[in-house]
């Protein structure tokens, strides 16, 4: 059974894939991260799970702050146009999500809905990293994959894996922070956060 919060996560995901403005995308991605933290808090039944849920909440706020800072620091003179139109992007994302749901086995049938949402988010993240030219959207792609995996991990593991769960959250957030540093440098060097400008290295 998929609840409202999980549907919201999917909806926010598709929204980010479709929108053009970075600030709108950051708002939607933050909504998705907060929905994930909400699910974690709702499902928490032990102190370890409550800690993990709190970590997800802090991460959502920290990433939102970082992304808002990035958007304000790197004002684009004009939006970076994606090479693929929004409707086709959304179509590819939905197809990718369906492919992953079809391909990946789900051992625990009671958690089928939540696992399907997780797989969809991972698929959305991969499609976004592949189809968007703006570096900030590629960072959001990583965050989507991260959100999907965090959702998959919720309730999946017993208490002893708290370190792994927190580690994954921290690790992927660190990747997003490092990517943000490079987004900032790329903007300073190239005048835009556009990966189509990163084309010097070819054989």
């Amino acid at each position, binding site marked *: 059974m998929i609840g409202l919060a999980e549907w919201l996560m999917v909806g926010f995901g598709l929204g980010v894939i479709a929108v053009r403005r970075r600030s709108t995308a950051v708002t939607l991605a933050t909504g998705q991260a907060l929905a994930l933290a909400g699910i974690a808090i709702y499902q928490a039944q032990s102190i370890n799970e409550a800690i993990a849920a709190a970590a997800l909440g802090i991460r959502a706020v920290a990433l939102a702050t970082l992304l808002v800072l990035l958007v304000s620091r790197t004002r684009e003179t004009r939006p970076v146009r994606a090479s693929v139109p929004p409707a086709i992007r959304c179509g590819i994302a939905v197809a990718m999500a369906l492919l992953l749901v079809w*391909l990946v086995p789900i*051992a625990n049938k009671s958690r089928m809905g939540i696992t399907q949402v997780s797989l969809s988010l991972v698929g959305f993240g*991969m499609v976004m990293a592949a189809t968007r030219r703006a570096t900030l959207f590629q960072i959001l792609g990583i965050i989507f994959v991260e959100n999907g995996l965090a959702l998959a991990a919720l309730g999946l593991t017993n*208490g002893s894996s708290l370190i792994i769960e927190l580690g994954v959250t921290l690790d992927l957030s660190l990747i997003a922070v490092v990517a943000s540093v*490079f987004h900032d440098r790329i903007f300073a060097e190239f005048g835009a956060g556009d990966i189509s400008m*990163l084309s*010097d*290295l070819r054989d």
Partner: protein
Amino acid sequence: MISNLVLSYLVLGVPLLFAMVIIVLPTQAIPSTSRIGAFLSGLTAMFLSISLLCHPKTELVGKWLILDPLAGLFVAIIGAVGTASILLSPSYLRDTSSSVVTLGNRDRVFFCILFIFLAMLYAVPLAGNIGAAWLLVEGTTATSALLVGFSGKRRALEAAWKYLILTSVGMGVALLGIALLADSSHGGGLGGLTWKALGTFRTSHSDALIAFVLVLVGFASKIGWAPVHNWLPDAHSEASPPISGLLSAALLPSVLLVAWRFSAAVSYVIGTKAVHEVLIAFGLVSLTIAVPFLWQPLPWKRLLAYSSLEHMGILALGIGFGGPLALAGVVIHIVGHAIAKSLGFYSATPLLAHDPRSSKHCPSGIGRSCPKLGASMGISLATLSGLPPLPLFASELLIMAGGFETGHGVVASIAALLLAFGFIGLIQAFLTIITGDSHHHNAESLVKVRVAGVFRTGIVSLGLLLGLTYIAFFLPSSILVHDIIYRMR
């Protein structure tokens, strides 16, 4: 007598300690402190490595740590290459003017990140479960991406960005596979993620196979196996030479060890045949993609990067073939590749100073214009090409023989053909670089550089490489290889 457990904590702790110390030190003390840190971390690594390799019976397999002879071998490689990379970094930093941070903070930030990266790198072969290994490998991505793009130049930023995005998405796929395995392992969570417990799934064969493929494809993106290797030539060619050496000689094989341990663990559920077929497929595709690039007149570091792709492919084949001959070949290949590749990348610093155009063009006639530098580059390239009597010839021969031994004659024949083409390409590059025409050089554009350090490293490397060839004769019947077969069957 210090126990292996304490030694392993020291191996991980010393680089972290020096990373913290460097943060608070005055700028002028950073290079000398880094040298001390390099020696100390290298020394602890050697002690641990010798202990693990000489006393395989004292192995420790826990939830978080695995201390076995294979871990010892990899810690030795990381220790040697890490120490050399730190020692050679000051000369690189002295010659470079650009960086992503201000000049005043450049050395501090560089060495701090380098020591953190080294600590994570040491931890990868010692990780006792796939979850911890994933965390550490992803941690190396974050730190090494900063080092790849450290110069702040356009090409370096491009390479770092590609590296970060492609490997992060790839590792996300791996984590998805790990989550699926954790879901279906006994007890769930961490208990199901240790190397020993990974083989106790409650899931079906096909479900476990899909999870295995997801994990392996994810790790392949970090190892640099084709077709998910796109970041590798860029990152290895644009990073500073000491970092390129560390990435190619230590990071790629360490992640390969994680994939190897994982493959061996899940083979209890999905069968060794399926595991070996997937590894052989990665190996063959990597070789096929790499070889045409070895025929192109590429810049030095880019040539070495494509050679990494080729050698990771050979290692995948060796692991995929299994058997004493192939696995002995894998051990020799990992060590020989680490020595030759790090020497090659270390030669790039004086090369770029001697002939700045070689950052974008294939160097030519270096043996004539700077014989000592040419000798070091020659030793590296001759080894990487598999020229006898150097050890990669012996290891490739052992791996191919292992293929025939284990009934993979057709694959081994195709691989041998591809290796022959790769050999011709690299020998062609060798001849151009060493004895090629240097007339096109504008004599004024060539800078006289101090190459004594790299030349000495080259001579020591040659001695080690020839010693390794000698070892190759005895290794297939050695206790080490029998131990590896026992653990990784």
